[in-house]
């Protein structure tokens, strides 16, 4: 028994020392040389990473795609929009999920590594402004009021509901919002404060929207923002606030998000496709076509608002004619810009 155990240990040691370097050697490229396409795990794998907001949608498409092409493997990761672009611009992934357009810095990094990409909008994500259901003084907030609450100067100053609007009760104002690494935070600050990444620091942030749901549901004085899908699943525990951008109070619904009347808190979400991968692995084109043809029903199922057919057609044309680069020209989040205008302008 004892000899057996010792023998096993030795064999294991040998096996490990013998095996470990072997798989490393053939697949080890010179690390300095940037890969053009994603390192091929094999030709039938489409590597996708990026925003955790977009992941449920892409995963749903990947799930359905198994019926079309059972041999193709489509794994999806959730490194976040920024983390996803880092890998994408390093040539490590084929497709990057993004809840905001590519930024200047990421744009430059991709260019340095010779990565060309095709930008495709896939759905709208509405952002909901939420209070606790026992809150009986707020029905609607103007963008101006939201800005007063969230701008960096408000830190330590706007601490009570009565400071938000004349007539609100003098109760403490408890703020909940998306974590600063998320595309949701980037977009919210751009849309409300006017500058991406600028907000007060004294709010409770979480990358996990379910934590924010719990927070607002348990705090009478709460004011928070997060993805509309999370409000819809928890509508009994939360109260939705309408947003007034100057044209009256509008609640986020599929209609108001899609026709652009729910402004400025509805944003398009994207996938970015590595152009080199597209040529190296033809199955990717099939996958993207399948994506754009089926995404409208799937978007509703996972809680997002589909784009109009016109925009999907424009996106498909963009893919087929291999239009690379960003319609936002590396500007990051932009507010109130119509997708169809941007896409058609290119033609």
């Amino acid at each position, binding site marked *: 028994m*004892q000899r057996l155990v010792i023998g096993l240990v030795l064999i294991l040691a040998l096996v490990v020392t013998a095996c*470990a370097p072997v798989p490393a050697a053939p*697949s080890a490229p010179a690390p300095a040389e940037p890969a053009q396409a994603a390192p091929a*795990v094999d030709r039938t794998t489409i590597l996708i*990473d990026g925003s955790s907001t977009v992941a449920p949608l892409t*995963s749903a498409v990947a799930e359905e795609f198994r019926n079309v092409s059972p041999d193709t493997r489509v794994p999806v990761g959730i490194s976040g929009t920024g983390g996803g672009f880092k890998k994408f611009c390093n040539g490590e992934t084929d497709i990057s999920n993004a809840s905001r357009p590519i930024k200047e810095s990421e744009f430059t990094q991709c260019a340095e590594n010779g990565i060309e990409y095709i930008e495709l909008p896939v759905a709208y994500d509405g952002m909901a402004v939420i209070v606790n259901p026992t809150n009986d003084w707020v029905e609607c907030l103007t963008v101006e009021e939201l800005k007063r609450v969230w701008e960096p100067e408000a830190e330590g100053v706007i601490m009570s509901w009565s400071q938000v609007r004349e007539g609100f009760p003098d109760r403490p104002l408890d703020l909940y919002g998306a974590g600063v690494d998320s595309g949701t935070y980037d977009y919210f600050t751009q849309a409300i404060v006017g500058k991406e990444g600028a907000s007060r620091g004294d709010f409770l942030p979480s990358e996990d929207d*379910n934590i924010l749901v719990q927070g607002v549901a348990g705090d009478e004085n709460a004011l928070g923002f997060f993805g509309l899908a999370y409000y819809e699943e928890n509508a009994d525990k939360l109260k939705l606030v309408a947003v007034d951008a100057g044209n009256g109070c509008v609640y986020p619904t599929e209609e108001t998000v899609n026709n652009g009347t729910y402004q400025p808190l509805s944003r398009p979400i994207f996938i970015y496709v590595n152009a080199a991968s597209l040529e190296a692995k033809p199955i990717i084109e099939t996958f993207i076509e399948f994506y754009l043809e089926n995404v409208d029903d799937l978007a509703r199922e996972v809680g997002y608002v589909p784009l109009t057919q016109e925009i999907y057609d424009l996106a498909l044309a963009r893919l087929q004619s291999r239009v690379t680069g960003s319609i936002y020209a590396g500007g990051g989040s932009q507010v109130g810009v119509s997708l169809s205008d941007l896409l058609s302008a290119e033609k």
Partner: protein
Amino acid sequence: MSSTTQTIVAARTFGSEQVSNLRRRHAYGRVFEALGLAAIMIGLLFLVVLLFDVIVDGLPWLRPQLFTEFPSRFAERSGMRSALQGTFWMMLITAAIAFPLGVSAAIYLEEYISRDHWYARIIEINISNLAGVPSIIYGLLGLGLFVRYMGLGRSLLAGALTMALLVLPIIIVAAREALRAVPSSQRQAAYALGATRWQVTRDHVLPSAMSGILTGVILALSRAIGETAPLITIGALTYIAFDLRSPLDIFTVMPIQIFNWISLPQREFSALAAAGIVVLMVVLLTMNSLAIIMRQRMRKQW
């Protein structure tokens, strides 16, 4: 013997001053006992509440599909097949790498070099420090070293190597403790008969210490099985709908799957996550009980 008889006996033997002193000391003893009990109960209570909550949420979802299906956007069709495979193979490879490395290191440190050497002390301090390094740091190391530099990609092997590094210090510390517990008289006896250092280690010290070493290894693996952060860092994925084919395949593991389900808006997924937690916990408890059984089986009496 009851405390009254004790007191009477005490009263006969000592004066009344000593009796009151004895009573006081017994009272202190009982107070400490109560405090100790309370301390245990606080820990246990939270554990029981937590377990109860998870089991109540997860029980309806503990069904065969949980083990046979891939993840899906519909909770009813979702399972953790790919995550179970990932966890199983990762633990196996991690053990195969960390066990021989860790035990060899421990043998060298305990049996071959003197503890008083300056470099032995430096190694010792560093190993203890490594055991306390946050796991995400190992993830960053794995990303730089295995995924990028060695070109392993976001593979199971890269994950297992990272995990092996993570548990190595724990295994070394545990194995050293086990080796140190072997009485030196055993070694001396073997040396007296002309055995070489390697023969002494192989035939006497290692077999005696094996139960302790295995306990340490399994406890280290129990830590690795619950780790999420380093694997997300090296790029483990969340949606995988195919079987693992080789150690160089992309992968996911149970804690990542659970983490992903919890973050989804649909509420059924949090119940599904609870079921996943129950499965993970059962695996963990099985591993821990295995450690206890092994320790009992192989325990040496001196």
